């Protein structure tokens, strides 16, 4: 029987690679790059080119940066400029590059109970939602979108609190699905919205185009001097890929239903 146990343990050891090999690149990213489908076209050519396997961990930008601070990932691909700058200033991140941008949109029920349709400023739209007490769902997960949303509440001079304000603590996809199910307003990045709007028949864009809704994405390597075990070379290769002409073309040419989701920052 001892032998049988040994055999089982040996099998366990043989079948499970317990630690990551160096041929893997761990990337923490925002849910929008994954939910929008961009990474499933952007990463495969990189993997083919370099022989690396990209492990995508999709969480909010806040958590993605936290994973970078802990050295649990090699590279972060996020959209929260304030946090990104802090991440670099504290020495956790190095070599940030602009990758692409799109914008945020305020979406809400077709009936638009708060009458925000046509407001040019996002802050104005938010004021009306809060004044009318219409349900608003917040990501509430310290993501880039959540940070932007709180910025806008700040600009509007309104406190996001009360029974109309639902703090969901979930990813962009989940929040859009929730808003669609209960007829609520929310702030979404345009990429996820376009990728998912076919499943969201009860929602439409009600406010867009405000410069306050600009949404830039950046890629940052985790500083190998802070965390010697990170795969810094692979991280830099990834940064090179997403800012290369080929990588930028993939971003530019990625469309859902004929609509581009992201605008690359390096090429026109």
């Amino acid at each position: 029987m001892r032998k049988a146990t040994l055999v089982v343990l040996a099998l366990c050891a043989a079948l499970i690679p317990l630690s990551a090999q160096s041929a893997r690149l761990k990337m923490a990213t925002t849910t929008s790059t994954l939910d929008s489908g961009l990474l499933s076209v952007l990463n495969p050519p990189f993997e083919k080119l370099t022989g690396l396997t990209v492990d995508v961990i999709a969480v909010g930008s806040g958590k993605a940066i936290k994973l970078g601070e802990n050295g649990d990932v090699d590279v972060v691909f996020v959209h929260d400029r304030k946090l990104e700058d802090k991440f670099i200033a504290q020495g956790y991140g190095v070599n940030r590059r602009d990758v692409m941008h799109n914008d945020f949109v305020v979406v809400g029920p077709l009936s638009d109970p708060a009458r925000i349709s046509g407001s040019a400023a996002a802050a104005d739209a938010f004021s009306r939602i809060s004044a009318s007490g219409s349900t608003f769902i917040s990501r509430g997960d310290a993501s880039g979108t959540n940070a932007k949303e709180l910025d806008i509440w700040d600009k509007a001079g309104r406190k996001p609190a009360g029974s109309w304000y639902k703090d969901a603590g979930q990813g962009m996809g989940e929040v859009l699905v929730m808003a669609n199910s209960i007829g609520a307003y929310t702030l979404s990045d345009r990429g996820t919205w376009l990728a998912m709007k076919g499943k969201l028949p009860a929602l439409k864009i009600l406010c867009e185009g405000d410069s306050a809704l600009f949404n830039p994405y950046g890629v940052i390597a985790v500083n190998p001097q802070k965390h010697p075990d990170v795969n810094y070379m692979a991280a830099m290769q990834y940064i090179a890929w997403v800012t290369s002409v080929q990588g930028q073309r993939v971003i530019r040419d990625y469309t859902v239903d004929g609509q581009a989701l992201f605008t690359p920052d390096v090429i026109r």
Partner: protein
Amino acid sequence: MGVLGRAIGLLVSGDPEVWFITWTSLRFSLFSSIIACAAAIPLGVLIALKRFPGRRALLAVLSSLMALPTVVVGLLVYALISRSGPLGKMGLLFTPGAVIIGQAILAFPVVLSLTASALSSLNPLLPEVLTTLGATRRGIFWMSVREARGAVLSAALASFGRVIGEVGAAMMLGGNIRWYTRTLTTAIALQTGMGDFELGLALGIILMIMALGVNALLHWVVRHE
């Protein structure tokens, strides 16, 4: 062609990703329950057959540990194996090994508690009788397990059921990485998040088929032993 149809369609169509996810789920759960059983069954027998002070309290603690929240275990293991944690050097976070460690910890009290209580209900005179018949310590151990093999098997299956259906530890420790640590439960969470309820439900049905299949297989093995 309902959801059930889509689930079966997904399986028979041989979609490689669905098969990979299913295989990953099965692999993680099997390994973690095997590891938990290897550690917990001997310990459970020991607790059941020995009389020592604080035994009742220990049994109560063990059975309450069966309800250990998966996210708490996920969080504790996370803090341990994160690069900035004490075992960070091993680079375990977001690998299959991390999920298996977390799930083994979840399965351990289930096997331990159920084994201990099953063997406690055996005739308390059994060890004595066996000793007078000249059985060695190891002999007593195996005969006790044999005597309660149905219950021990149930304990193993309960632990398998606990881990194959859990999402907390698998998500936090594995990171839901495609072609690597994505399991049926984390895939369901992802699909639901992306608004594809039907695919989520189809994967859920596959999950239940898996759990049912493993249960049926083990019961069959025991019956034909």
